[in-house]
C-alpha cells in the first residue's frame, strides 16, 4: 500500500499541476485564436480598406481576444473548478519586468503627447485619445492577463495595432514603405506574424495535451469516487 500511495500522491500532484497550467501559462485554443487574430490584425491593417467598420473591428480585436480567453478558461479548460497555477520565482520576475517595460513606455508616450497637447492649448484629436486609452489598457492587460511570454508578445502587438488604427495608422508590411523609419517599423513588426504561427502551434499542442489530461483526470476521479 505505501508504494502505491507514494505513486498515487505524485500522480495527483502532477495532474493538478498540469490542470493548473490552463489557468495561466497554457492557453490551448485561446492561444490559437490569439495567433489567428494577430495574423488578421497584421495583414488587415494595411490591406483592408480603411472604413469605420474595419477600423472598429481592428480596435476591438484585443479586448475580444481577452474576453474569449477568459471565457474558454472558465467554461472549457477549468470546467472542473478553478485551480490557479503556482508561478516560479523566474516567471514572477519576468512578468513584473514585462509590466514595468509596458508601464514605462506608456508613461513616456503619455508625457510626449502631453507636451504636444500643451502646445495646442491642451487639445488632442479623438484618435489620439483612443490611442492613449488603448496604451493604458495594454498596461492593465499585461498586469492582469498576459502572463506567458507568447501571450505578452501577441497582446502587445494586438493592442499596439489597435492603438495605431485608432490614431489613423497601422504597422506597415515589409517592402511597402520607403522612409527609413517606416521600413524599420515594418521590419520590427515582421516578428509578430512569426510569433503568431508559433502561438498557433503551441496552442494546438496544448489543446491535444488537455484532451489527454481530461481523460486522466476522469480516470482518477472515477477511482477516487469508487474508493470514497
Amino acid at each position: 500500500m505505501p508504494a502505491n500511495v507514494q505513486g498515487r500522491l505524485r500522480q495527483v500532484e502532477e495532474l493538478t499541476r498540469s490542470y493548473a497550467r490552463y489557468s495561466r501559462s497554457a492557453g490551448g485554443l485561446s492561444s490559437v485564436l490569439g495567433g489567428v487574430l494577430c495574423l488578421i490584425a497584421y495583414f488587415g491593417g494595411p490591406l483592408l480598406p480603411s472604413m469605420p467598420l474595419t477600423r472598429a473591428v481592428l480596435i476591438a480585436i484585443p479586448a475580444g481576444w481577452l474576453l474569449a480567453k477568459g471565457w474558454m478558461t472558465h467554461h472549457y479548460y477549468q470546467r472542473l473548478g478553478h485551480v490557479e497555477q503556482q508561478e516560479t520565482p523566474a516567471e514572477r520576475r519576468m512578468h513584473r519586468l514585462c509590466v514595468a517595460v509596458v508601464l514605462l513606455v506608456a508613461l513616456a508616450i503619455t508625457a510626449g503627447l502631453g507636451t504636444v497637447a500643451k502646445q495646442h492649448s491642451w487639445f488632442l484629436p479623438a484618435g489620439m485619445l483612443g490611442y492613449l486609452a488603448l496604451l493604458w489598457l495594454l498596461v492593465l492587460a499585461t498586469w492582469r492577463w498576459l502572463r506567458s511570454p507568447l501571450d505578452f508578445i501577441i497582446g502587445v502587438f494586438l493592442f499596439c495595432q489597435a492603438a495605431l488604427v485608432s490614431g489613423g495608422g497601422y504597422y506597415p508590411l515589409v517592402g511597402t514603405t520607403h522612409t527609413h523609419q517606416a521600413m524599420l517599423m515594418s521590419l520590427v513588426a515582421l516578428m509578430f506574424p512569426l510569433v503568431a504561427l508559433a502561438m498557433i502551434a503551441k496552442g494546438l499542442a496544448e489543446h491535444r495535451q488537455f484532451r489527454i489530461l481530461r481523460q486522466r483526470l476522469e480516470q482518477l476521479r472515477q477511482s477516487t469516487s469508487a474508493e470514497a
Partner: protein
Amino acid sequence: MKTPGHLGEVMALDRLVHEPARLLILAVLAGAKQVEFGFLENMSGLSKGNLSSHMSKLETGGLVAVKKSFRGKRPLTELSITAAGRRALAAYRQQLAMVMQELPEPTAATKRK
C-alpha cells in the same frame, strides 16, 4: 515494552496527514497555488459535508488556508496549502518511504497465500 523499529515508524506517521481523504486534499493542493472547492469535490469523490469536515481539520492544524468570498451571488471557497502543510506532506512522504524500507519482506509462505 519496546516497539520494533518499523512499528515505531508507523506510529510516528502524522495522523492528520495520514487519513486518505486528507492526504488526497494535500496532494491536490501541493500541485497549485490555489484550488477551488469544486475541483477538490470533483477529484476526491467526497460529499460536500465530508470534504468540509476534512478541510476544517486541516485548517485547524495549520496545513491549509481557506479563503471564502463571493463570485457574483455564489459563495466561493478557495484553498491553498501553507508552508507548514508542504513540510508536513514532505515529512509524511519520507516517513512512508522509511516504513517501506523497514517492513520485513513477505516470506514464501505469505506469498503463496
